[in-house]
């Protein structure tokens, strides 16, 4: 049986593509658009995923948030019917959570709102009671002065750190650091102004006054904590830290597991999954254009078979069998799809580069799976949609084919 050499087939296909430049260019563009669309759209999706991940990382990916009450037992149950509330979290609870190698730092949180007043101006703002460690846990930066002092948690030092918006509205153009601020019925010395960070997981840092946790508890006349933030030493330490927090608080609460520990990692994983799904979805939508390109290739190849009928007849007269004709036409489609895919890849990567240039915050890099899959789908589409025209060519009657001019 006669066998065509693969190099000869490729060269013949290459000559055929060169012989019809307009048709070749049309199909190349169609395939390239499909691949470029997949690359650009998945790079956008991946960029969004990386951006969100980075934002979470800046908040502290190794963060554990301890909330009083069990999330599973929330809602109507016998204890809530009898007016019971979850056991409170206390400062002693918070302090006990630092006694582990897996925990780097801890910050108790108390939240309330109060009137703040200075130099005749007043407004109601959110008061956040916490500790020195909060700054590092939340990756916040100071604009002026310093954050809360690293004193004992029980010490109600009359100092406060104010957000930029509070500073502007209460102190206007005057210097705030060193001034007195009245919060409720107490006076606090302003020791620092927060940096420019905006909203961070439900807290608008601009519009907040931060005081030592003991001071906040006195202000709001409460001994409980809103929540406790615990930072694990590393990503791998999150699990033992969570176990430690749960065990410690169960022990302190007479064997009752009455707190919920949320890990930032878990939230991040959820976001990651959502954005990954989004990336796959937009990639899938873009892949439709590959299908459209495939249909275009089929149409153009059908026209090509029709235009090259006499050539096919000649090849048969010269001894080409059905499989050889099939191989020659499929090789053309394969070569075209591969060239189109490479062109699309280049255009797509340039598109991603342009997005990164225009939006430096968005790390728009197409994921490797999307790149390889788009090339694979492009080649498969090109070959698949060329099967019909190639089979038609292979099945042509040589006498009739030769009579076509």
């Amino acid at each position: 049986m006669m066998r065509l050499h693969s190099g000869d087939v490729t060269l013949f296909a290459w000559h055929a593509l060169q012989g019809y430049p307009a048709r070749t260019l049309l199909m190349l563009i169609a395939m390239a658009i499909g691949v470029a669309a997949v690359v650009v759209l998945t790079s956008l999706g991946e960029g969004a995923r990386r951006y969100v991940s980075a934002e979470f990382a800046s908040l502290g990916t190794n963060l554990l948030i301890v909330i009083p009450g069990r999330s599973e037992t929330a809602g109507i149950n016998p204890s809530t019917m009898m007016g019971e509330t979850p056991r409170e979290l206390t400062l002693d609870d918070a302090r006990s959570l630092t006694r582990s190698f897996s925990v780097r730092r801890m910050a108790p949180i108390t939240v309330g709102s109060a009137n703040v007043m200075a130099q005749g101006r007043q407004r109601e703002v959110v008061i956040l009671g916490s500790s020195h460690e909060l700054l590092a846990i939340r990756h916040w930066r100071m604009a002026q002065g310093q954050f809360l002092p690293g004193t004992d948690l029980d010490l109600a030092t009359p100092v406060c750190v104010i957000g930029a918006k509070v500073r502007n509205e209460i102190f206007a153009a005057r210097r705030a650091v060193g001034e007195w601020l009245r919060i409720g019925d107490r006076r606090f010395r302003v020791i620092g102004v927060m940096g420019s960070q905006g909203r961070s997981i439900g807290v608008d840092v601009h519009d907040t006054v931060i005081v030592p946790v003991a001071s906040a508890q006195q202000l709001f006349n409460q001994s409980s904590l809103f929540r406790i933030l615990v930072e694990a030493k590393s990503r791998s330490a999150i699990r033992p830290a969570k176990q430690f927090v749960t065990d410690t608080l169960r022990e302190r609460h007479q064997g009752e597991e009455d707190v919920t520990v949320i890990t930032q990692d878990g939230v991040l994983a959820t976001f990651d999954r959502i954005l990954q799904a989004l990336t796959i979805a937009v990639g899938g939508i873009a892949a439709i254009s590959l299908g459209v390109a495939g249909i275009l290739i089929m149409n153009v190849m059908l026209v090509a078979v029709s235009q090259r009928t006499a050539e096919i007849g000649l090849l048969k007269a010269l001894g080409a069998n059905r499989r050889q004709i099939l191989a020659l036409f499929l090789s053309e489609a394969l070569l075209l799809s591969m060239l189109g895919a490479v062109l699309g890849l280049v255009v797509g990567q340039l598109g991603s580069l342009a997005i990164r240039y225009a939006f430096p915050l968005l790390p728009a890099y197409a994921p490797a799976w999307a790149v390889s899959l788009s090339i694979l789908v492009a080649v498969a589409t090109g070959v698949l949609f060329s099967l019909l025209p190639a089979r038609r060519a292979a099945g042509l009657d040589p006498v009739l084919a030769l009579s076509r001019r």
Partner: protein
Amino acid sequence: MIRLEQIGRDFQVGDQTVHALNDISLQINAGEYVSIMGPSGSGKSTLLNLLGLLDRASSGHYFLGGRDVTALSDDEQAHTRNTQIGFVFQAYHLVPRLNAAENVELPLLLGGVAAEERRARVGRVLEVLQLADRAHHKPDQLSGGQRQRVAIARATVTEPSVLLADEPTGNLDQHSGLTVIDALEALNARDITLIMVTHDAAIGRRARRQIKMVDGRITADQSSHDASA
């Protein structure tokens, strides 16, 4: 070497059956020079297509080199065309995007001949047909006569035993036509069986054996020796 036994070829046109060839029995020996002549629709091209294994007979048997090739599979027929038969068409049928050498190379490429041997054989055959200086010219850069000589080179590069020419001078002026006929006759002189379909009686008469067809039947089959006698 070629033997046809009661060959018939029917075509279905609508409800009607057209008998393009009727009960053709014929023997052509190796190295013969045969012309087939007849009016349009007489079946001469159909006969040539059957001889070239481009078409299948509706009835009868075709023996090529002693082997019954009537019922060969498509692939076996393709292989036989590639190795034993050469075609020269009125319309040349050169691939426009390929140069002369590449066009001549095509049957060798389809036959799986290695590139080095292909180049050597193409070079030799172009030399024989005085086309060596036109090897890298595209068909649209060649004259009609040169194109037909390229087609002859392509038909003979595989060194076939039978050369089938369908109106090889039909598209050429008289001078070019004669050059082409000279080239074909030179090949016949090297023991290649030459079977040529032509309308042109003057060219047909140059063949040592002349077959005349009318309505799908052979009406005359005479050699030049008989004719002159």
